[in-house]
């Protein structure tokens, strides 16, 4: 059984990740995401973590690595669905995310992704 799911939404890819994702599944996820980004014109990846009750350093490390890859491929990773208790654990464990934007919902995620693209256009 897969512990993640893809839902394409225009040029955005929604990814749901479950809590019990394992090592080999993360590699599978990475491979599939990179394949989708390169084959279609994907501008943003939205990770839905609302099904995750605790983000441990293992999951955080994988998300960070995945996000760097996504960023290099020219898309913006956004995390949605973090709840207050999850955030407290993240702060208590001193877990940081780099290169990632955060949003409440898809609407916020779309804003974050388009802001990113606007800035990029400005730099270009």
């Amino acid at each position: 059984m897969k512990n993640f799911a893809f839902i394409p939404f225009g040029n955005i890819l929604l990814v749901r990740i479950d809590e019990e994702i394992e090592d080999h599944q993360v590699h599978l996820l990475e491979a599939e995401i990179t394949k989708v980004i390169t084959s279609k014109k994907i501008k943003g990846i939205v990770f839905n973590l609302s099904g995750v009750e605790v983000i441990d350093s293992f999951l955080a490390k994988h998300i960070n690595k995945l996000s760097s890859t996504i960023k290099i491929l020219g898309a913006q990773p956004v995390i949605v669905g973090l709840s207050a208790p999850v955030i407290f654990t993240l702060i208590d464990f001193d877990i940081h995310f780099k290169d990632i934007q955060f949003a409440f919902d898809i609407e916020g995620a779309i804003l974050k992704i388009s802001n990113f693209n606007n800035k990029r256009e400005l730099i270009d």
Partner: protein
Amino acid sequence: MKDVTELYRDETFLSEIINAIPSCIFVTDNEHNILLINKACAELINMRPGECFDRKSYEIFDSQMCDKETGACQMSIGQGIINSGQTILNVDDKKIPIEYESRPLKNFEGKIVGCVVHFIDITKRMHEEKILLRQKEELLQKNEEYIRHLQNEILELSTPVIEIWEGIIALPLVGTLDSYRARSATTRLLESIEQTKSSFVIIDITGVPTVDADVAKHILLTVYAVRLLGAEAIISGLSPNIAMTIAQLNLNLEGVEVCGRMADALSSAIKKIQSRKEYLKSINFFTE
């Protein structure tokens, strides 16, 4: 010399006195035979004083006090010590709590010839003590609840979270911040953001004269937490003192919007919300 009748009268008079005493008294010889017992004592074990004479004390008193080997009487007779304490006296099916004291009885040569045991029924006292204890506990519990209630009240008063605009909430902090208060403020703020789905948070610290290193770090941590939730935090009303603290601590304020006045922060947030709405309209995100 007193004559025999006078002595006899003295003895009855003495036993009258002993019988008139409301607490229980009995005297035994070295073999635990009852030599003397008063009325109150016999009544307590549902007997008449006459029935008790020349019987063993451990036979008529079912209690640890009169135990043949380890009881208080035996200790007094064997070692000549004064024993006192509390124990249970079993009468039929009833358990009567008693407080006793046994003393060795010595003759004119100083030799121990028996023991005197004095005890009182403390059922009523125990009952009253129990009631008192319960009342005390109830009072303590009530007090504790009240104090907890007040503490919660103070905490809520000290960290108010207000929704000041559609999608904008404010956290005005007044007074000295300690790390406990800062933490509770963060908790309430995050909960409010989740409830109201606000996208902007204004943390106003105009009323905070000074912060220490921990609290300054905590404020920045709050900003980070707010960002993780998907909202954006604006800090307003930084006093020169706090600005100096943050600069001295080398804290990274990069990416954090800071406004001088709360009004500026509010107008900035409103502008951003409006431009976001326009953007969403322009890309035809929600076709209405």
